[in-house]
């Protein structure tokens, strides 16, 4: 968000009397406080990325066995329950899903690697 946009938003807060606005984005969180005529703007540091562990052993797949591309790309938004990978056990495929809404950071285990229980599979930044 640009400074100009921030000023516009801050102006709205003053006009409407809203005390505080939290804005979440992929790069972190903005906090705009309306302190009775003056507004302060703070950029919070990024929330820590969440490493999602494997629920059980298997071969981790970052893409569908029939497809060339990964389920999710770095930086893209994911919603709770969305499939971001698979654990293959023999012929069985078990989905690995995003535990919360957020932004996908990267895969922590490579495609077609054997992983054990609790091995980090991917990182995401929850919103």
């Amino acid at each position: 968000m640009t400074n100009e946009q921030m000023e516009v938003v801050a102006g709205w807060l003053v006009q409407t009397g809203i005390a505080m606005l939290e804005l979440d984005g992929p790069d972190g969180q903005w906090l705009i406080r309306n302190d009775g005529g003056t507004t302060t703007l703070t950029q919070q540091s990024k929330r820590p990325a969440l490493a999602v562990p494997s629920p059980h052993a298997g071969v981790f797949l970052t893409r569908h066995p029939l497809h060339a591309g990964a389920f999710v790309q770095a930086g893209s938004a994911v919603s709770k329950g969305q499939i971001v990978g698979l654990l293959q056990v023999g012929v069985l495929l078990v989905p690995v899903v995003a535990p919360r809404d957020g932004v996908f950071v990267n895969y922590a285990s490579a495609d077609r690697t054997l992983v054990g229980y609790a091995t980090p599979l991917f990182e995401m930044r929850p919103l």
Partner: protein
Amino acid sequence: MIEILSSTALATVQDLGRFGALGWGVSHSGAMDRLALTAGNILLGNDENCAGIEIPIFPFRVRFHQACDLVLTGADHLARLDDVPVWPWLTIHAGAGQILTIERGGPSRWQASRVYLCVAGGIDVPLALGSRSTQLRGQFGGHQGRTLQQGDRLPVGVAAQALRPVGMGIVPPALTMPLEVDATPAIRVLRAAEYAAFTDQSCVEFWAKSWKITSQSDRYGYRLAGPMIEPKYPLELRSHGIVPGVIQVPHGGQPIIQMRDAQPSGGYPKIGTVIDADLWRLGQAPIGSSVRFVEVTWAEAVRALQDVTDWLDEVRRMVALGLTVRQEAGHDQ
């Protein structure tokens, strides 16, 4: 209840087929890719013979008037449930009112033609002569004995299991049991009764050349284009029973492979028969693609069928195991 929203023709209700009625002239019908339908039913906890919708032409759209679990097996595709992607061979839950759209997919590791929409509880059309498969020639079975049309409403049976928000999947058998010769999809064939009646040259080329599946190919049969297959002398046979997989050579010299809706009898000379174990591969071969024939012995053909049986056993075992593991891991949301 599922409502068909697209006007695309040629989709039919199919189970594993209708047996015991050949003597009335009623062919087996049933899914062209039996492995895809069976695996879909296993994933959903259905009876393995539950009916699904076989979809050969896209786009295809349906609306679910009731919540249900579903899985799309068979060919790779681009599908979405409202706006959420639906991955092939992975179960998903549809809420009442949601719309499933299936479109022709891009490049895939498996170029195949037919998608199976399997739903928990199965497509619950009435049984006709012991099967829910559509008998197009006889105009019975399936939904009113015909291909599905826009506005058709299909009843869904009672699901055997509680709904699961995010399900499981199976590695498609085309990846587990690949078969190619010189980078061309291969189909195993046993010699048939009139094999020796064709010229030596014809027999050599039958095995050595690739065969194109022409646009005149459907659930009845695949008409192939390739080298001329000529008999040593004219053959006029008495009509006899035939089965899906039989490769007939009419006088024109271009083979026709009998498929699921093929008539149960015929009289053109037979050069070979696609083995039962490979009919699902052939049933998925797209129009315009090519196949190669590989000769096998009886023992190899029986062994190949055992491989298919073993694969299905493994699917049953792993899906049962998967349900247990997921419950213990508290994976189900």
